[in-house]
């Protein structure tokens, strides 16, 4: 019975880890965590999302990246672990989260959104929160959905305005260089905490120092996923997988009349 065998194996692994903890040896975690979808695991180096490193999922607003991330969170959490979702856009919809197998009681949602702070400060707070969560080591996986592109757009607007008005250039407090530094800090925090760090980005978004990058796009037949970048093998897309949306899907009727 494979299910029974798996449970026994998990129990033995848990006991081994317990002995390791009692003997004060460093925890031995798997280097990779499955995304929960074998087709996507096949695209990832190591057969899953790396632990202790950043992984990026880039795609449009309905490309299916959040579904992949939620599926990976559920897999990383297992039966006792915790996960966190830094929801910098305030768009995560919990009623859909349970359908991916995520236990809402063990998912910490962080929404550092305060209109009085402004976009720049909200992004800064979200990145700080993500760094703290990653470095704590208390979470098996941390997903980060931070609208850094809004800050970059604002920065560009301010640069143009400054040029036009021939006045001293007013650059946003969170410029590209400081954003890059923050990404490096995120990577260091992920290495320190040892959990899975998943960055949700836009296709043309900020460049994240990730160990694995998946690009997702929505097509007529469903979701297309391709591995765009991997540490040590940077360059052109290596593999492509085309499948249905990770979201549970009802029947869609192309001829339906609205």
């Amino acid at each position, binding site marked *: 019975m494979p299910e029974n065998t798996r449970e026994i194996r998990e129990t033995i692994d848990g006991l081994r880890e317990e002995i390791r903890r009692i003997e004060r040896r460093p925890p031995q975690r798997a280097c990779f965590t499955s995304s929960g979808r074998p087709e996507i695991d096949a695209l990832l180096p190591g057969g899953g999302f790396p632990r202790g490193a950043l992984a990026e999922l880039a795609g449009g607003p*309905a490309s299916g990246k959040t579904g992949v991330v939620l599926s990976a969170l559920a897999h990383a959490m297992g039966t006792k672990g915790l996960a966190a979702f830094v929801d910098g856009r305030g768009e995560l919809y919990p009623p*859909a989260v349970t359908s991916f197998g995520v236990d809402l009681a063990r998912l*910490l949602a962080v929404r*550092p959104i305060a209109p009085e702070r402004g976009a720049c400060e909200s992004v800064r707070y979200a990145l700080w929160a993500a760094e703290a969560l990653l470095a704590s080591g208390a979470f098996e996986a941390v997903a980060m959905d931070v609208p850094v592109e809004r800050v970059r757009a604002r920065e560009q607007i301010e640069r143009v305005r400054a040029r036009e008005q021939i006045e001293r250039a007013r650059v946003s407090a969170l410029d590209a260089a400081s954003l890059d530094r923050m990404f490096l800090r995120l990577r260091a925090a992920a290495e320190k905490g040892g959990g899975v760090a998943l960055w949700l980005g836009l296709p043309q978004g900020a460049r994240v120092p990730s160990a694995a990058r998946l690009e997702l796009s929505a097509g007529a037949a469903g979701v297309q996923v391709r591995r765009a970048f991997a540490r040590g093998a940077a360059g052109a897309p290596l593999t492509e997988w085309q499948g249905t949306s990770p979201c549970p899907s009802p029947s869609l009727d192309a001829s339906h009349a*609205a």
Partner: protein
Amino acid sequence: MQLELPATPAIAEARVSRRVLALCIPDLPLQRVLRAREAIPERGARANPRVPLAVERDGRVVACDAEARARGVRRGDALVQARAACAELEAVPADDGKDRSALEGLAEALLALSPAVEIAWPDALLLDASGAHLLAREGTDGEGELAARAIALAADLGLRCRAAVASGRATARALARHAPAPTPVVHEGGAGDGAAALAGLPISALDLPSPLEERLLALGLGQVRDLSRLPEETLAHRFGAAGLAAWRLAQGIDPSPLVPYVPDRLPEERLDLEAPIESSGPLLFGLKRLCDRLAARLGGRGLGATRLTLALRLDPRRPGNEVRLEIALAVPSSDASRWLLVLRERLGALQLPAAVAAAVLGVAEAAPARAEQLALGDRPEQYAALEVVLTRLAARLGDGALFAAQLMDRHRPEAAYQAGAFAGGRRRNAKAGKGRRGRGEDGRPGDEAMEAGLPISALVRPTRLLPRPQPLVALGEGGRLTALRVGTRTLRVLALSPAERLTSEWWGDPFDRDYHRARIEGLGDCWIFRDAGDGRLWLHGFFD
């Protein structure tokens, strides 16, 4: 007729053989002043450590440090006389209120070691040591271990102590006052055997009333042994009950019970800075000491703080010279390092208008800090890390920014969940645990089923819900929806699901919407609805 019952041997033994640990803090006024100065950052670097220091009361020196003693200053000297011996002597006025607070603080912390602690003003604390045998291990005796722990705890709080364990309050206190620091004295004898231990001590060690002590000294009774050798009847005849009591004390007989100290308010600690501080680094250095002391006091009472207050008194030369911070903690905690983490976060985000001249850290709210029962497989270090990070995030982002979502039985998509406290999956929500079968918290059906996730998993919901729906313009031909205009872009509709009608509950705000999942070219699967009220189309979410 009143019957006088003879005391049973067991009761009599219990009354006289109570073991007491006495802690004596020599030169408490001086130690308190030095402790306060150690907590001041940069003091050690700036101040000349060779400046002799003395504490004076009514023009007389009551305590002085080793440097002052080396220059000829003695306790009891007139201040003028002391200054004549040592011109650079720094004299600090005594403050009984602060000395008492220091003793009370130590007594609170020592409650972690003993069930009863008595404050024996002005310089001693008496602890019930009758349970010390429980601390005995192979090669060590329990009473010595208890005394060593008490000394170490006092040292952590910045106070140097002498300790002695004996039967009876007076014997223990007398031995502690004359104990060679820092080794604790443990007198093994039972009740009445203390005479030998006390024999070599001066009469003043018994802490007798002043007139009696003076009369005994006038008679040439300088040591305790001189008193204990006298016949009991003679003393009773000459000095009355006081003489008899003194003789009993000299024999080591003191059956009086301890008077336990019961703290009546939550603790607070104060840091006075001689020179105002402008940067947060040195201030945190001082606050660390305050946190250590406060946490030890609270931990001794078995409590954990849930809310701290920090009052920063700013430079008095500036107006509006106080800043108060309220710091909420995620779980009851008496761990100073966790408090300090939160304080660091809050101070880092604070811009003070002037330098800080004093800081008062207090516990505004506390709750019993329960010991956690761990099971095999639990990760206490992970729990600790979780509490620390939650506390930091709550301090910086505000409590409302962190939550665990709880599903609600509501038709309106925006109200289909609510933010609840995140407990890391360790505690179930009280409401969820006591949910009525098939009924919601306000009597409406389905909360329990919703918590089980059944209806939601049966339904299809988008992973992203826009905070505000965006207007769409429908384009079609022959009654069919063929395209949608999103902003300035026109996108082709590739497929559309049948409508799912969502209407308001009878008690809620009215709404009537037909939701569709639409596959839109170049965008993906979207959740759109047609408002039945005005017929307009809206984009409400993404199946991302």
